């Protein structure tokens, strides 16, 4: 807090009061002072770069897990495991990705934006590389379920907090644009693996996807530019939020929403299998459902003709 106040004071000394524009453009790279002082720019190159970084991170955090449809078929055919047992890996990955958000969100508020994203990316890339070496169920479970799942949750939260701090009037628009990354990722990652498995074999296909993930991570970390003053003190969980009625109702609504929605994702692919189409077609239907908001029907048609 004291460091921030010092910056604020020195900036106020350096810049005459009648040039507010100069004040804001000069101090763009400096961590901003208190929220009362700070006005979100609501646009500009730096702000939209944060949205692009958020889009890339969303590509990984929620796009990458939809690759699991491809993995599931591969594990079933090569390891000969029952589908219910395999699907536990995917469920655990999603569960851990959501579960860790409280920790990564608190870290983001404390100002550890880049380091948190880097830690998450490391876990995702490491987990994916280890998946490519795995041959037993427990190895895949640890690498893909636990390690990658934790990483996805850790990297997801900080960019959201950053985007949120750059926008006020256009906030939903900015956050929604960054959320399109989810759809992009859920087309890019499954397609990459699906194309590469017949060409270079499963281990290298997975390794290539780890390299894609690494590239995306590095790009997003380079783009991120946090600006709010860190909130270092304060507990991990803000229990007092649960005394606010709107917050509690919001959380309850979100719980209900996701309780039912995963049944939708899960069973759209399952029902399609019952109705009876070719196995590859099934993967495509299941991977495209989350990406549907992104990919137009044209894309789906071209994909189904490709496979």
């Amino acid at each position, binding site marked *: 807090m004291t460091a921030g106040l010092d910056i604020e004071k020195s900036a106020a000394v350096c810049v005459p009061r009648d040039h507010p524009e100069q004040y804001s453009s000069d101090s763009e790279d400096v961590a901003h002072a208190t929220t009362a002082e700070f006005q979100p720019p609501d646009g500009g190159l730096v702000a939209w770069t944060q949205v692009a970084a958020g889009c890339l991170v969303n590509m990984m955090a929620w796009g990458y897990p939809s690759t699991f449809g491809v993995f599931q078929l591969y594990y079933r055919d090569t390891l000969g495991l029952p589908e219910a047992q395999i699907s536990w890996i995917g469920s655990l990955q999603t569960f851990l990705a959501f579960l860790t958000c*409280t920790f990564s969100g608190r870290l983001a508020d404390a100002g550890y934006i880049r380091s948190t994203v880097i830690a998450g990316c490391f876990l995702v890339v490491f987990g994916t590389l280890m998946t490519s070496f795995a041959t037993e169920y427990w190895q895949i479970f640890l690498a893909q379920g636990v390690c990658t799942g934790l990483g996805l949750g850790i990297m997801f939260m900080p960019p959201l907090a950053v985007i949120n701090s750059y926008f006020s009037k256009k906030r939903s628009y900015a956050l929604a644009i960054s959320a399109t990354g989810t759809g992009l990722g859920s087309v890019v990652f499954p397609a990459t693996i699906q194309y590469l498995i017949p060409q270079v074999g499963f281990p290298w296909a997975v390794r290539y996807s780890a390299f894609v993930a690494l590239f995306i991570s590095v790009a997003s970390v380079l783009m991120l530019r946090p600006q709010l003053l860190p909130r270092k003190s304060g507990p991990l969980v803000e229990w007092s939020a649960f005394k606010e009625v709107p917050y509690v109702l919001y959380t309850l609504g979100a719980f209900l929403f996701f309780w039912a929605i995963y049944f939708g994702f899960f*069973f759209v692919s399952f029902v399609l299998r019952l109705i009876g189409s070719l196995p590859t077609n099934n993967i495509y239907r299941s991977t495209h459902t989350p990406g549907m908001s992104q990919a137009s029907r044209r894309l789906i048609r071209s994909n189904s003709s490709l496979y």
Partner: protein
Amino acid sequence: MPSRPVVGYVADRWVGPINMYTLMTLLLGIVSFTWLGVSSRVGMYVFAVFFGISNGAAQGVFVGSLASLTKDPRKMGTRFGMVCTTVAFATLAGPPTAGAIIDRSGGEYLWAQIWAGLVIVLAAFTMAAARCAATGFKLKVKI
């Protein structure tokens, strides 16, 4: 490419993120009920498309709507993280709940589909209640 940015733009410009999230969740609930009428493969594809579009629309304003409830942007990460951690249990419980309903009704999907539709509509009403708790019972409030 459209649904998420469009929904985000409309939310900022006219409707307000929470109102938009409520409306889109309600739409998703209605789409889920159309699932009951799907019996052919073509119908399933059409359903998947609409399910995807309305889900994308709802999730696009999911974060934005919490942001409009959060006064201090420096608490955003913690507060949204807490919501996500709660949601984690929902994602874990969802498929087994549906599976149990399907087993109880002898392999029929009907009751599970009704359950999903009802829960999503209930989520929409809960969001509406959150909005009313924040603003009072006024129809035209942009939040």
